[in-house]
């Protein structure tokens, strides 16, 4: 489903906090319908970039276009076009499954009938039928994460940002989670995902690797492996993403 039409364009993005440069001149594009992996060690500047792309934070300089909207100038308008799911759990534990879906549907301005229809379809697709009136706190983590993802794309955004969505989830659920990601991308929603699991990076259409605020590699997993002469993205990552490693003899 990948086309060459960019939905995210980042040019010369710089973000400074005082004298600290969190994002140092980033340049990249994300194409419509692709699964874009955003990798980097802790503290490499991923979260900062993600916050700018989702309109939570303003860039110091540079141009950021998300779904045709200038993120620096009009962050509020971005918000209608994106979905967001963060590593920490984003559903309310004291509300039921249906109430959570209704809440987020309502926040994104969906009509009542539309929400009701979507809820039924969603519960069926996830085989959640029996859980409609269950409190989230009673659900196992894997189910919650899947539900959180489904809720994040409920309003059919153009792009969905996933910030380490599979942290702490068992391998089987992770597998199912990635099947959901594929389905979503196949449905035309661009998926922008950060992860620490390198096997997941292999599932992405393209990955970028950040180190010390810069993007040091960006290509398809296959091309990266070929370029660095290794057999997995993990090895690519270890080779380039660990700052200061060269200093250790």
């Amino acid at each position, binding site marked *: 489903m990948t086309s060459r039409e960019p939905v995210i364009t980042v040019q010369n993005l710089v973000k400074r906090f005082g004298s600290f440069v969190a994002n140092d001149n980033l340049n990249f594009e994300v194409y419509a319908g692709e699964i874009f992996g955003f990798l980097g060690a802790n503290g490499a500047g991923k979260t900062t970039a993600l916050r700018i792309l989702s309109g939570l934070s303003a860039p110091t300089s540079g141009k950021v276009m998300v779904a045709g909207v200038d993120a620096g100038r009009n962050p509020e308008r971005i918000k209608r076009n994106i979905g967001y799911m963060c590593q920490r*759990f984003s559903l309310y534990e004291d509300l039921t499954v249906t109430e959570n879906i209704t809440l987020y549907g309502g926040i994104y*301005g969906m009509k009542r009938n539309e929400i009701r229809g979507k809820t039924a379809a969603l519960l069926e697709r996830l085989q959640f039928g029996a859980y409609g009136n269950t409190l989230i706190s009673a659900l196992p983590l894997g189910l919650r994460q899947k539900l959180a993802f489904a809720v994040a794309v409920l309003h059919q955004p153009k792009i969905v940002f996933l910030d380490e969505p599979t942290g702490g989830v068992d391998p089987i659920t992770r597998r199912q989670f990635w099947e959901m990601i594929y389905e979503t991308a196949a449905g035309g929603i661009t998926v922008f995902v950060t992860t620490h699991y390198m096997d997941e990076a292999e599932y992405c259409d393209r990955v970028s690797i950040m180190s010390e605020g810069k993007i040091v590699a960006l290509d398809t997993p296959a091309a990266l492996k070929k370029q660095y002469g290794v057999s997995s993205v993990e090895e690519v990552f270890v080779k380039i993403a660990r700052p200061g490693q060269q200093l250790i003899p």
Partner: protein
Amino acid sequence: MKRFLGFVRKEFLHIFRDPLTMIIIFGIPAVQILLFGFVVSTDLKETKVAFLDLSKDEITRTLSGKICSSGFFELGADLTGYHEAEHVLRKNKIKAVIVFEKDFGRRLISDGTASVHIIADGSEPNMATLITSHISAIIADYNRELAGAGLQQVLLVQPEVRMFYNPTLKGQFMFVPGVITLIMLLICALMTSITITREKEFGTMEVLLVSPLRPAQIILGKVLPYFILSFVDVILILLLSWFVFELPVKGSLALLLAELMLYILMSLSLGILISTVAKNMQQAIFISLVGMMLPTVLLSGFIIPVESMPMPYQWVSKILPPAYFITIIKNIMIKGTGFLYVWKETLFLLVFTLAAIGLSIRNFKIRLQ
């Protein structure tokens, strides 16, 4: 607007599903009002006193009779000697001992003067003052009677004390305004600061901020349910104090409710301010309790009158909004005064509210950067 209402509905669900929150909002106010009203009552009501009558004549018997039939006191014991006085006071049931000297009646008639001792239990100073002043008043009253009957030549000038606004010195008059002040601060400031920091701690705040809801809508949506519930609460407290303690609102009810709304608004903005500073729920609770509840209880004139505090504490109470609110609410509820008498305090609350809102908006923006 529909987005906003959906969000407010969710906030109500949070409140109604959490037993602890429900207890804080509805249980604590009722319990506090009843507790302060009945238990911590400072009224004299059938307080036990003992008599040591060394004279045992007609006059001393009449006087003791008057004291015991006043409704304030009750005969606890008849003593036979001084040595028993300390013993009965130690036992703690009897709060004061009244001693008539030897030949009390004869001296009063022949010399025109006789002495009576009142020994009160000073370990409870307020109580002791209250007891001695009541007994003195009863004796003075009897003095006047004697003077009227022509038994005493010199007519002493007797002060006649009357308590305005609260003629029977009901303790509830003190506590109801205080409890309202405290409870509103508790619910509004503490609960809102907790509910906002909870969203931050659980990570749901990020999701909300990424959504099309504007930050102002998020904060308003979180605060609105507490505004409504605290208002319901105030009305419940007023009804309770009216029906249980027969404490009506003397002044304008509309003015009282308007002032209450201002005070609720101020407490809410304080809660929001705390939530922008606190990193997690524990911090929010700590700041609310130690930073606000404690000074309010101790320094706002709720229990200890501001006038009887040392100067430095009085200065502190000058910058405590609850101290101003207690003045306002007492004026309206008990004295029945109008807006002209409380406009200064109202202005202070208003300025404080605006400052708190301004500061929290600034803090919120900084955090978002």
